[in-house]
């Protein structure tokens, strides 16, 4: 998975959902509209730790600064899409 810049949005989304599934262990249905804080009940620190996992999954750096703009899985997928394109 590392360093693959040909990933398109649906693939990014699928990767994020796979990462979240390991976190929720299937207790919550995860989709594009899933709210990371509200639906998954994650606190701010857990979201930051999730980013460490996702950074490694995509082999990119995700600045902590973007987190205020990330509410849903879609927001996150779009940010990653942007970061992958910007490389």
């Amino acid at each position, binding site marked *: 998975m590392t360093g693959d810049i040909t990933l398109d949005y649906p693939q990014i989304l699928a990767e994020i959902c796979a990462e979240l599934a390991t976190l929720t262990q299937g207790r919550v249905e995860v989709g594009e509209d899933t709210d990371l804080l509200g639906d998954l009940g994650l*606190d*701010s*620190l*857990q979201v*930051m*730790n999730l*980013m*460490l996992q996702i*950074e*490694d999954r995509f*082999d*990119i*750096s*995700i*600045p*902590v*600064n973007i987190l205020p703009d990330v509410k849903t899985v879609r927001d996150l997928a779009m940010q990653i899409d942007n970061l992958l394109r910007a490389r």
Partner: protein
Amino acid sequence: MGLFDKFQGLAAARGELEKLGVDPFGVEIERILSPTEGIIHGRRTVLAGTNNYLGLTFDPDCIAAAKRALDTEGTGTTGSRMANGSYANHRKLERELAAFYEMRDAIVFSTGYQANLGLLSGLMGPDDVVLLDADCHASIYDGCRLAGAEVIRFRHNNVEDLAKRMRRLGPRAADTLIVIEGIYSMLGDRAPLREIVEVKRELGGYLLVDEAHSVGVLGDRGRGLVEEMDVLADADFIVGTFSKSLGGAGGFCVSNLPALDLVRYSSRPYIFTASPSPATIASTRQALVKLEAGRDLRARLRVNYERLHSALEAMGYTLGAPPSPVIAVVLGERNEALQFWKRLVEHGVYVNLMLPPATPNGVSLIRCSVSAAHSSEQIDAVCRAFSDLRSAAGIVAAELGTG
């Protein structure tokens, strides 16, 4: 959305604490008797959660210096150094701190929190990258935020993870600021400083070491982990506080880089804050002399924390890290930790309660900080309280239905 709606969660959490009859975040020390003893709930209590590592808050020479400064320089400076001028002793303390670290210069800030806030926001800008150890203190996160810098975290004390993230930055790595702490405040563990320095030597970047909990504690002259690991020259910035080992209030940054002086002009937390009061500066200057010469204090501190650490370990408690003056007892469940903390206070022992998300990995911690000023009897009293609670731990768990 009403102005106060956001407080609903907090209000509920506090209501829950009230129902449990525990108030860990509003403790009143009714009277302070010594660096290690106070009156809480009308009871003589051993203070083992103070960060008063060398016990200098009641040092007669520090008190005398502060009194002299009060008499000769007044109660406050009534303004910021930039707008209202520095007192000679602000600069003296800065020169003394620089000499202590054998560095070019120092900046004094009004609190420890502001030292990180002031340095990071003054030094970094929106185009810069900061690499933070994930467990860094809130003041570091806040300083980066104020700077608008790009913040990237690496896994706590994981040098490989740091190197991986540095490499991802490509050519930007050369101008990255790596921020770590000498002793981490929650678990009391140390940074793998030599290995981090190796990464910096290989991949570039600048290194900031926050020695808030290690100044006065580690190193022959008390200069912290950088001294103990003999990498003083590799630290581009060292940040510390006056409010722990030095027994006052305030913070500092030292550096060999000439640009440090320019940070004064770009640091809003420095520019727009009143400078430390004369008494604070005077006691800190005196405390710095004591700290540097205080090998006996460091030896006593070490005896105390090693004793408490091994006693707690022998009782079967899970501890956060190898011995250091910060000893964190790891308790999994929040309510268990709350009850445990309450009972310790009832046993006449005051420690700190730390709950997620302030703690790493969602654990609840009972955090002890040991002082050189703790008498052998006081360490005994702390051990006894933990031992009594160990046998009662099953009862606490049963009461809560978690046993």
